């Protein structure tokens, strides 16, 4: 429109920054009130930490020679029975023997530092693989159920409706308990299997409805065109309807899988050491309650953001034919 200027946007961004800053200050003030002492320095060790691993001699004998090698020392032990000498490398400040000392088998010579993966990293990994595995199985279940849901066969349709209503009408937490305590006991399932199965069936029911809606949103003319070319119903579904439907349902599907990652935290109640359970365990030893929960939340946010970016990229790729 000529003459009409767009109002400047920056004051609103300024306001946004101010509001966010206000929230941070409120958070800080709130923790001041309860006299919480922050110990962020305690957090990193739960990702990755150095562990001292004691090194012992496999043979009895005498220490023949100690050679310095940077921070390390190479300890050469001449076996008592006159065999070939053994060399053990340890850190110099942990050295426990001198040249000429007699050592028995399994005696400690010193220690080395080794990097170990901490419980937060382990928990994060468990959360990721449990989510992806159950998401994949759920997608397959959802696809099959979605197709059954629109089938002309009343038995298939009825089963699909029953399953979807059952899952959508009950809380996931209760489903996990039933899977672990009832089905898990009857079928002698491992807790991980029970957890993944419960999550997969849960996400499958929601995915089925999404896929059904997607299939039904494809115009009838598409099916008619494919059938008029002599394609069978299955070929039409595979080559024509599903690719288009999948493209359409990608955004709601993405939302469902992001929800799944968050919902997977519920499997911690059946003692699967996922990110949430790791967090709880760490708090009992570190007493850094606030820091750990904030960190756990941030890690979930990280995983969901990466996934949502990935799906956004996929969506744009599919948009080529629009």
């Amino acid at each position: 429109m000529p003459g009409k200027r767009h109002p400047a946007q920056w004051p609103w961004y300024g306001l946004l920054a101010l509001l966010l800053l206000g929230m941070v200050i409120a958070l800080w003030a709130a923790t001041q009130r309860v006299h919480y002492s922050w110990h962020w320095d305690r957090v990193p060790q739960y990702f990755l930490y150095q562990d001292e691993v004691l090194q012992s001699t496999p043979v009895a004998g005498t220490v023949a020679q100690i050679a310095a090698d940077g921070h390390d020392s190479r300890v050469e032990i001449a076996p008592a029975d006159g065999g070939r000498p053994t060399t053990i490398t340890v850190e110099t400040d942990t050295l426990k023997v001198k040249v000429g000392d007699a050592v028995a088998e399994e005696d400690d010579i010193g220690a080395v530092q080794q990097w170990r993966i901490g419980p937060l990293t382990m928990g994060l990994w468990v959360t990721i693989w449990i989510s992806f595995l159950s998401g994949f199985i759920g997608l397959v279940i959802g696809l099959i159920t979605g197709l059954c849901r629109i089938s002309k066969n009343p038995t298939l349709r009825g089963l699909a409706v029953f399953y979807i209503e059952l899952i959508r009408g009950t809380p996931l937490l209760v489903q996990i308990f039933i899977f672990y305590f009832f089905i898990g006991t009857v079928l002698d399932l491992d807790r991980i299997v029970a957890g993944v199965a419960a999550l997969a069936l849960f996400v499958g029911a929601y995915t089925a409805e999404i896929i059904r809606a997607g299939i039904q949103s494809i115009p009838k003319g598409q099916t008619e065109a494919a059938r008029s070319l002599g394609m069978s119903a299955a070929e039409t579904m595979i080559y024509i309807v599903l690719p288009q439907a999948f493209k359409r349902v990608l955004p709601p599907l993405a939302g469902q899988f992001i929800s799944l990652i968050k919902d997977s935290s519920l499997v911690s109640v059946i003692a699967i050491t996922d990110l949430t359970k790791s967090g709880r365990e760490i708090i009992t030893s570190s007493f850094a309650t606030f820091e750990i929960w904030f960190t756990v939340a941030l890690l979930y946010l990280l995983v969901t953001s990466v996934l949502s970016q990935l799906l956004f990229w996929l969506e744009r790729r599919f948009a080529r034919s629009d």
Partner: protein
Amino acid sequence: MIEAKQLVKTFVGRGHIVRAVDHVSTQVAKGEVVVIIGPSGSGKSTFLRCLNGLEEFDDGQVIIDGIDLTGSKTNLNAVRREVGMVFQHFNLFPHKTVLENVTLAQRVVRKRKLAEANDKAMSLLTKVGIAEKANEYPSRLSGGQQQRVAIARALAMDPKVMLFDEPTSALDPEMVGEVLDVMKQLAREGMTMAVVTHEMGFAREVADRVIFMDAGRILEDAPPTEFFTAPKDPRAQVFLKQVL
């Protein structure tokens, strides 16, 4: 080539039964071009869609090249690959390129090799004058171009019969000609065609026979010269007065 005997198709709408196709019998000989005209809602599109089983009919028989569509041993998919169909709204596959639109059924249904299917597709796209758009997606094409691709897609299956369901009705006026030209060329090459259309000029010029339908029945079946100059049926007379 096509034979319909006492074809009946009913729809249940608002509590009462509508006979969209009411005991229609006719036949289309090999190489013949039959144009079906009539007011909207006269059942001409439904009748056409019954001919390749896209619409399940309630009674009667359709025999395509000697095969009864309702026969218990008839493989409908095998019949359909011999019967090409062109739709009012083109129904191109939007997630496939123009070339893929034309090759897909060749590969899936006719089990042709990729190179063979591509050659066939390119020669057909050249024939309908749209080869340069082979790698575009349908959404980038005009209506007339899309409909020509749809014709090429149907022809790629080497059909014995082509059915056209109001192929120009959804087109902007300036694009009608390019589609009709392709159809005329097909007719000249001896393709057996059944065409539902409102293009009276096309009917007059190309048709061997004109069928006039109203209320699900065939009211007149005559050569175009006869039909357009001296229609016998009173409803056909009224209809022609309105459209010409």
